[in-house]
Structures are given as structure tokens and as C-alpha cells.
């Protein structure tokens, strides 16, 4: 079961069994963003409190789904809490880069890069626990599970401050 062990690393199962930052926040002041994977029915709700300094002062996760989407959401919540929005965006880019190779192979042109802006990994960003999700790229269908929380977070952030 070497392939599976690569997917379901101990740290992932730990986040799945003991999800961090599970719960809700009162809205307002918190923002609420909902994400949804139509293929498998996974649902993530991200609650986000951003303070006056543009720092994520609190984050909570609700919803349900498979071990990958749930652990990814849990890891993300731990990673972004206390970070500035810029740091969060850098993390997001780094995580997307980790997940990208296969997603682009699946959905987009090879080689010519047309229509896609493929994120490039930034070695300066430390993904921490999230790096354990790297094994997911070998299972293309699950990439959407792993990125669901991040896509939901992005939606929430865009509402806060649309970037150029």
C-alpha cells in the first residue's frame, strides 16, 4: 500500500481525526465563504476574522467531506491564523504550486501553457504540515479535495480586498 501511505500520511489522518479550528464565527464581524466540490459533494465553510492591521485574527472551519478535504482545511486554518493577508496569499500560491503539476496535466494544454497562469513554487514559503499533502498530486481526482479549502478562502479574501 505504498501509494496509499503516501496519500494518507499520518499527519493528514491526524488532522482528519482531530480537526483544528473547527466551528463557526459570528458574522459580522467575521466573513463567511462557502466552497463546494460538485463531483463528490464535499462542502467547506470558512469563517474569517481580519483585524484592522490586515491580519487573520481568527479562522474557523465548518462543513463535511473526505479525509483529504477536511485535513487540508484543518491544516490551512492552522497555517493562516495570525498571518497577514499578504502572507496568506503567498501561502496560497505556494500550496497551489504544490498541487499544480497534475491538475494542469488533467485539465489544460501541455507545453504551450495557453490559458493558464501556472503558479511557480516559492522556496521562501514554508508550508509546514501542508507539505504532507504533496502525495495528493499522484491522485489527480483528489487534488480538488485538497484545494477546496484554499479556493474557498480565496473567495473570502477577494470579497475583503479585491486584488489588482
Amino acid at each position: 500500500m505504498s501509494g496509499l501511505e503516501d496519500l494518507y500520511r499520518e499527519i493528514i489522518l491526524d488532522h482528519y481525526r482531530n480537526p483544528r479550528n473547527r466551528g463557526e464565527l459570528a458574522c459580522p464581524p467575521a466573513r463567511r465563504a462557502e466552497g463546494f466540490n460538485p463531483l463528490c459533494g464535499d462542502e467547506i465553510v470558512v469563517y474569517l476574522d481580519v483585524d484592522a492591521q490586515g491580519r487573520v485574527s481568527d479562522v474557523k472551519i465548518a462543513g463535511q467531506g473526505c479525509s483529504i478535504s477536511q485535513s487540508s482545511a484543518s491544516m490551512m486554518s492552522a497555517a493562516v491564523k495570525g498571518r497577514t493577508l499578504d502572507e496568506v496569499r503567498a501561502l496560497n500560491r505556494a500550496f497551489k504550486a504544490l498541487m499544480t503539476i497534475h491538475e494542469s496535466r488533467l485539465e489544460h494544454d501541455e507545453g504551450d501553457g495557453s490559458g493558464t497562469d501556472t503558479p511557480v513554487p516559492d522556496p521562501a514559503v514554508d508550508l509546514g504540515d501542508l507539505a504532507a499533502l504533496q502525495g495528493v498530486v499522484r491522485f489527480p481526482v483528489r487534488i480538488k479535495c485538497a484545494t477546496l479549502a484554499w479556493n474557498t478562502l480565496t473567495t473570502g479574501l477577494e470579497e475583503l480586498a479585491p486584488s489588482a
Partner: protein
Amino acid sequence: MAAMSPVADLPSRLDVLDVAAIRAEFPIFERCRRRPLVYLDSAASSQKPRAVIQAMAGYYESCHANVHRGVYALAEEATSRYEQARAAVGRFIHAPSTREVVFTKNATEALNLVAFAWGRANLGRGDVVVLTEMEHHANLVPWLMVAEQVGVELRYLGITDEGHLDLSRLEATLEGAKVVALTAMSNVLGTLNPVRRVADAAHDAGAVVVVDASQYVPHLPTDVTALGADFLAFTGHKMLGPTGIGVLWGREAVLEAMPPFLGGGEMIRDVRLDGYTPNELPWKFEAGTPPIAEAVGLAAAIEVLDGIGMDAVRAHEMALTGYALGALDARFGSDLVVHGPRTPGDRGGVLSFGFKDVHPHDVAQVLDESGICVRAGHHCAKPLLRRLGVSATTRASWYLYNDESDVEALAQALDACSDLFCL
């Protein structure tokens, strides 16, 4: 007249099929992947026997041409093979006439054809369309679209807790209905619906009956007249045939009275700059170059199924369903919750279940590691899953090439799943 279920008295027997010999006809089982293939996803799409693959290759290698319009011998041969496939499909479902058999790209197009061509001509604001809570999206979304465009009222037949259609208020629900569209067999619950009973009541109420037989035709002997259908839709790739082809059967008088669906070549008799005259049945509903090689492949699939016998296919699957229900219950008890009827005679070979707290995505992933292919998700029946109170199920489904060993493999791999996720 045992009208309620035309299949109720077919026997359930595990020794009717020589599964090893059947499997040998399916090249995919020979492939040496990481491990033997345990294919339990035939409700999504079946595998293809050598005869079907070769029929299509042989067609392209020796007699391809566009159909219906060519004088030369090659075109005549292609046309003849295409029309013979139509006749084979007609015989397979006991259609009164070949003129009633329309080739589409899949069951979904067939159901859209009914909703749009029949629906737009016959439905107006406030008219009632009756569906069931267990429909596949293919038999829901077209009607939702018609409702959006025309403004019809949608009513639903609910389901009981065991996953049967709830017919307790059938007559009241049907009152004023112009069309009743229901699945002959649920692709999630496996439930075989009492199509004839509903059809009789629908006809009494003056409604037209649309049967989604996508999960039925591949697995049970089908007689469109005995079912009481006015329209019946199914799809080639679930019945050993190729992708790219589906079938709409419709009663001749109903099809005659309908406007065409898509416009283009084949389906017209004359075109002027300001109008057109549609062609005869069944070509009126076949716009553009049809799925010619796919029809040849589907005819080959039907020959295989006919050779084995649909009674035998049904007997085998019913027995295997009984075996699976028993084996899984014995092994996992209440840790494994099966959705749908518990009596094999009431259902087809489709088993949706929940396993402990493990998410179906994770179950399917772990099973795949043992070479076992099952579906995880909503199976294109989201309203039904909401009704069941789950966001996803794991679904195992079988066909004539599966036997007890596949069920055993499933059970063993579920143990592994338990080891990984449940401490």
C-alpha cells in the same frame, strides 16, 4: 395479469452463467495492471466484450461511409448495417416498429429530446409534470429547464424509508398531470420501480409516460409495451456497447405528432430559405451524421446479451445481489448501511452504502489500491441523496462478468479501509 413488475417471477440463480467464460471475452480483464481488476462500477459504464470492439474496428476497416445519401455499394452497406442495428435494438426491447427507434448520443439526449421536443409542443404554463425523488439528473434537469422556460408545475413522487417509490398518494399526485417521468431502476438504490402500475395510473390521468430505462435495459428483459411506456430511454455504454450512442424509443403515434428536436441533415425532407419539412420517422429525430460505428457496436453488444439471455443475466445478478447483501451483513453488521430495498427481487445489482464514518471518497480510494473499482459521490442524483440525508455514498454495482469472488474482494478491502481510518 401480473402487471406490477414484469420481472417479479424471474428466478434467482448463481449457476446460470459461466462467469469465467464470460470474463474471458472482455479484454480489459486480461490486462496486467498492478493487480487483477475487480470492476464494480458497471452502473456508471460497463466494460466491452471483444465482439463489440471488433465489430466497430471491422466496420471501419471494411465498410465505412456516410449513411442514407450514397448510391455506391459502400454507402449502401454502411446504411444497411446502421439500419440493421436499429432493427436489432427494436427487437431487443420488443418495439412494435423499427420506426419507433431513434438513435441519440446517450440516454441524456434521449430524455432531453422528450422534454424539449414533446414538452415544448405539449406543455404550457401551469401544466403538471410528475417526477420522482429518485431520478438521475438526466431525467430531472431537462424538466427543470422546461419548467424555467415554460412555467410548468413539477411534482414529485417521494420514496419510502426502504427506498421504494411512495405510491400512497399516487392518484392525487397524478391529478391533472400531462407527463410522468420516472426511472425503471434507481442507479443509487437499485430499486426496481413498478413502472406498469404508475403508467396505468398516469394513463388514466391522461398523462404521457416517460421511462428512464438506463439501468433497466442492460440488466433485465425489456418489453416497452408490457411496461406501459410512451417513451423509453437508455444508453449504449451501460449495456456492453460503445460510448457515443443512446436510444429513444417512442410510441409511433406520439412521435408522429411531435415536432423535430435538432435541425440539420438527415432529419429533413426539404429545406427552403424560409422553411423546412421534416423527414419521416425515425430519421426526423436524427440530425446530422448519426453514430454509425456506434450503432454497429451496439448491435454486437445486443447479440452478446441475446446469446447469454437476459433472463439469465437477471437471474445471475439477483442471486449475486442476495449473496452480497448476506455476506456484507454477516461481516460488518450495522457498520455497513445499505440504502434501498433489502429484497433482491425488488432491486438490481447496484449497492449503495455507508461504511462506518469513513467518507465514500476515502473508501473508494482505499478499495482502488486493491484493484477494486467502485464509485463514490452523489451518482448524479443529488435530490435523492439529500432525501437519504447523506452527501455521498459508496456504490458497488455488478454485471454478467462479476461473481462472488468480486464481493469477497470488496469485503476484504473494506477491512483494510477500517484498519486505516478507524482506530
